[in-house]
């Protein structure tokens, strides 16, 4: 990236600076929920249904109440009058969407294993855990609905009052006749079905909640390990009926989220209610096993995708049909998750006709919701796997089929068949670069040699190219999708009297490195040291306005707000500087922290001088208020559309079925980069998270709806030992959507990598007669597929 190409001042933006967050995080100085010292706090433990579906015929709390230290035990009935509203679902995607009442403590019936049926309040964490064992619940187990197909059949209707397990159907078919005609005229018609297994998000820090009430003045502070302190404040006020001005929400250091902390959870509202009731602080810390059942899960959908193409493999239509698993209840944005992918099932290919339909159903499993990528990994997976199938049908290479269909660069901004406008893109160079990085031709030759030699270790190369929509989101677009909130972001930039800077952001970082990046944006413009910029966030008393962090929105929306607030504060500083220099403000320029008059370099005043003058207010121009501070709220006019090409190289041991990831290359484009090291870090983590879905992770449920992978020994989150050195590079195609020309990168790796690995796995196995593999491609599953295809050395 050369400076002349960018809107930046040529300062620190673009430097691979170490993260200023890390010393506190790495030394344990940073405080997470469980580190908070709250004298006199009561501990909460949740009695959770061990059954996926059961009627509650009675709850005997007497033994629990006899445990030393147990203060109270509440059932759902006991607390029924506590709630002003059920737990919120903010995304009623259709007007007739079915949304069952969902209260923090279940009443009458438990609908998934993990559903809270009673709560123990005790003077210590240990007493609360002992109390749990004393609560005796009389369950009447009912048939559990575990699969989406079973759910759709309505064999057992989970929420009887709704009359069906189908929550909604959501179609996006701009031209139905066009789609039908395209399929009729198609030379090649590929139909593929894929299943996205349930994934259990596993941030390093599970969830935790602490609530500190002030019973006499009515204030209440909610500490939560959340991605969304601002949204949570509004929702908690509505759900519990607490006056919003009395409520303060703080997300202290948060150890990762990946979407699973983008929610309003039962335990948050419950702890608030109990703190209100008891008049003392109340806290709860989730255990890892508890997290596996009570924190939302990701993916969980069955997809059918059909491609129509002409004889050359040029796509003429794409039709995608989903059956999505919402779990037992609708969490905060769950119904909208499939919609975030709904516009992208044609990938980055120029396709005239498009059809998408999603049906979402309830099951007796943990509720699902947004998980890193949220809808877009699913969409990318479907189109990218299907493109490989089309390549086979047409008889061309998997690289060539993509190149033939990429949206041509000259078509940007591109009016997509699903109704979006893709902001900018240049796809072929990314694929070319990724092929170069992996050594495509050499690897293809090696694969051919091994096949010719009858080797039993099979090489497979898999491409996944992607475009995604992120930077959530234009508020008007959200309105058109029935989302209950906007997608703006707020920022304040404040130059203090000593010329140190405070930045207040409505983004709520939980591992991303916003403090570093926001400091760099402001420091670059003001010409100060990034260490002189302090970023304040995640406390609604300090940062009252915000829409928080998810959907790869923080830089393109929140960062843009900071950019604009910086410009606004510079404008005001220039007015004061001009007064001091007896010049016109428009003749001034700010370079390296000094205001000077264009053409008269000797006439200058440092920003520090202006800052102090603004503070003393002794001699300000008429009509100019003291102090240097500016607040901006930015509502983006469009999403941003990052893209790239990923290639995985795997080696499969025919005898055991083991898949070894040998090499991985990616060329991504997120527009201009603020800190390339952070971009790489996001890609490393994101790519591994996507690979994990392909090879390791799976929430395994038995036919009774019991999770058989509820701990980190059974749920296979990869560790550093499973990772490989990746070959990463990037192209830069700035977004025209925002002044910095940036796009998001937080989810891109996860969106791209799953399909790359699975395409590589199938490519490796194809000579053995295997044409499809379900995820995860475990050694046993691969071996079974080889055997089923009639091949394989023993």
């Amino acid at each position, binding site marked *: 990236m050369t400076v002349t190409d960018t809107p930046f001042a040529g300062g620190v933006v673009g430097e691979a600076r170490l993260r200023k967050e890390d010393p506190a995080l790495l030394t344990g100085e940073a405080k997470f929920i469980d580190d908070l010292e709250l004298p006199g706090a009561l501990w909460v433990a949740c009695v959770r249904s061990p059954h996926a579906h059961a009627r509650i015929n009675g709850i005997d709390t007497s033994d629990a109440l006899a445990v030393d230290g147990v203060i109270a035990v509440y059932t759902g009935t006991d607390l029924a009058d506590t709630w002003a509203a059920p737990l919120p679902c903010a995304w009623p995607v259709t007007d007739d969407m079915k949304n069952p009442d969902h209260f923090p403590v279940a009443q009458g019936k438990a609908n998934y294993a993990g559903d809270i049926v009673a709560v123990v309040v005790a003077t210590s964490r240990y007493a609360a855990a002992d109390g749990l064992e004393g609560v005796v619940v009389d369950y009447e187990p009912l048939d559990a609905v575990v699969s989406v197909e079973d759910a759709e059949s309505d064999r057992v209707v989970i929420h009887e009052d709704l009359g069906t397990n189908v929550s909604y159907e959501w179609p996006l078919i701009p031209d139905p006749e066009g789609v039908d005609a395209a399929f009729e005229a198609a030379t090649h018609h590929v139909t593929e079905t894929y299943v996205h297994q349930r994934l259990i998000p596993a941030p390093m820090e599970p969830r935790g909640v602490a609530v500190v009430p002030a019973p006499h003045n009515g204030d209440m502070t909610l500490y939560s390990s959340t991605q969304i302190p601002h949204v949570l404040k509004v929702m908690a006020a509505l759900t519990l009926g607490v006056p919003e001005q009395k409520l303060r929400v703080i997300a202290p250091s948060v150890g990762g989220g990946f979407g699973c902390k983008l929610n309003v959870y039962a335990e948050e509202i419950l702890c608030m209610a109990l703190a209100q009731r008891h008049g003392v602080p109340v806290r709860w810390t989730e255990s890892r096993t508890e997290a596996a059942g009570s924190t939302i899960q990701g993916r969980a959908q069955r997809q059918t995708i059909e491609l129509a193409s002409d004889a050359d493999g040029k796509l003429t239509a794409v039709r995608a049909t989903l059956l999505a698993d919402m779990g037992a209840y609708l969490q905060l944005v769950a119904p909208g998750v499939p919609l975030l992918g709904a516009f992208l099932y044609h990938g980055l290919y120029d396709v005239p006709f498009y059809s998408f339909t999603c049906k979402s159903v309830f099951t007796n499993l943990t509720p699902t919701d947004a998980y890193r990528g949220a809808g877009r990994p699913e969409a990318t997976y479907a189109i990218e796997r299907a493109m490989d199938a089309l390549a086979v049908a047409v008889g061309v290479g998997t690289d060539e089929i993509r190149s033939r269909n990429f949206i041509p660069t000259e078509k940007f901004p591109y009016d997509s068949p699903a109704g979006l406008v893709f902001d900018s893109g240049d796809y072929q160079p990314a694929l070319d670069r990724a092929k170069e990085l992996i050594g495509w031709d050499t690897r293809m030759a090696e694969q051919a040699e091994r096949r010719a030699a009858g080797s039993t270790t099979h090489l497979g190369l898999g491409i996944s190219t992607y475009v995604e929509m992120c930077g959530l989101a234009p508020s008007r677009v959200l309105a058109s999708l029935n989302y209950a909130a906007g997608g703006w972001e707020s920022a304040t930039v404040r130059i203090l009297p000593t010329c140190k800077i405070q930045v207040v952001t409505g983004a709520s970082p939980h591992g991303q490195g916003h403090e570093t990046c926001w400091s760099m944006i402001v420091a670059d413009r003001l010409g100060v040291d990034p260490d002189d910029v302090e970023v304040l966030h995640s406390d609604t008393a300090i940062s009252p306005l915000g829409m928080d962090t998810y959907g790869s929105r923080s830089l393109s929306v929140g960062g843009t707000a900071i950019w604009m607030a910086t410009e606004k504060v510079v404008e005001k500083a220039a007015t004061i500087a001009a007064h001091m220099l007896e010049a016109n403000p428009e003749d001034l320029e700010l370079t390296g922290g000094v205001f000077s008059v264009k053409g008269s370099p000797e006439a200058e005043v440092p920003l520090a001088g202006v800052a102090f003058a603004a503070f003393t207010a002794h001699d300000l121009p008429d009509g100019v208020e003291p102090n240097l501070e500016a607040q901006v709220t930015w509502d983006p006019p469009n999403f941003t559309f990052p893209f790239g090409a990923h290639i995985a190289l795997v080696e499969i041991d025919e005898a055991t079925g*083991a898949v070894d990831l040998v090499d991985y290359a990616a060329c991504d484009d997120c527009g201009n980069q603020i800190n390339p090291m952070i971009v790489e870090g996001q890609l490393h983590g994101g790519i591994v998270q996507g690979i994990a879905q392909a*090879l390791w992770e799976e929430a395994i449920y038995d036919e009774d709806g019991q999770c058989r992978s509820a701990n980190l020994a059974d749920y*296979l989150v990869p*560790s550093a*030992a499973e990772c490989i050195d990746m070959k990463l590079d990037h192209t830069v195609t700035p977004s025209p959507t925002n002044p910095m020309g940036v796009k998001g990168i937080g989810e891109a790796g996860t969106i791209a990598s799953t399909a790359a690995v699975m395409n590589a796995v199938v490519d490796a196995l194809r000579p053995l007669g295997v044409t499809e593999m379900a995820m995860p491609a475990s*050694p046993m599953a691969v071996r079974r597929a080889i055997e089923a295809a009639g091949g394989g050395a*023993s």
Partner: protein
Amino acid sequence: MIPAAVGYVRADSTEEAVAALREHGDEAKLLAGGQSLIPLMRLRLARPGLLVDMGRADDLRGISVDGDTVSIGALTSHSDLEHSAELAEVCPLLAHVASQIGDPAVRHRGTLGGSLVHADPASDLPAAVLALGGTLVATGPDGSREIEVSDFFTGFLESALAADEVLIAVRIPISTGGWSYQKFNRRAQDWAIVGVAVAESGAGVSLVNMGSTPLRASAVEAAVAGGAGVSDAASVAADGTEPPSDNNADASYREHLARVLTERALVDAGA
């Protein structure tokens, strides 16, 4: 993940430990590195009334070679086994197997004695010791006795140790012949889905996670001793086993893996 209340005493010697076990009977549980017991307690699957912590009994830690026997104190950590230059010389199989356990944190805390006494069929070290042969030294109220390794594992998570006995040492013959350890798992830190240990070019062969106890692959040993080729010897690796089924592998896949890995181990060990 909150354990139930538990009593605690520290035993700095074998005698103190034996006395505590005797006094408290079934209530008491010996704590070494805690890598199996503590997780079970946190899940409340184990609820001992008293922990007898031997973690600081330093006389039970260390590796020594006397003639053709290696003696290893029961509290010697996996990490000590992994990094011992002496062990690498006289019993490279054991040093290597120790390096394949869990992750560095587990290897620093976990002990050889703890792993053997826990008798988990999925653990690495019991199988390695089985392949190597030798004796285990236990001390109880009536003094010490030696137990043949092949007699030690009596059932699922059960050993020949009496409730008031403490395992104090492992004595194995020096073993520098061809060896191999084939551990098959999906992540480096995991238990073996199946593991195969080969000592002395196939004279000793054992299996991990192929039944309710760590197993000797007697049929393979006999085939090797009888001069069978590697593939023929490996083809009987799963004979007589009753492997478990779980998320990662059903019984028949485990049997298949046992054969594949045994062949690889035998080849690797130069059988």
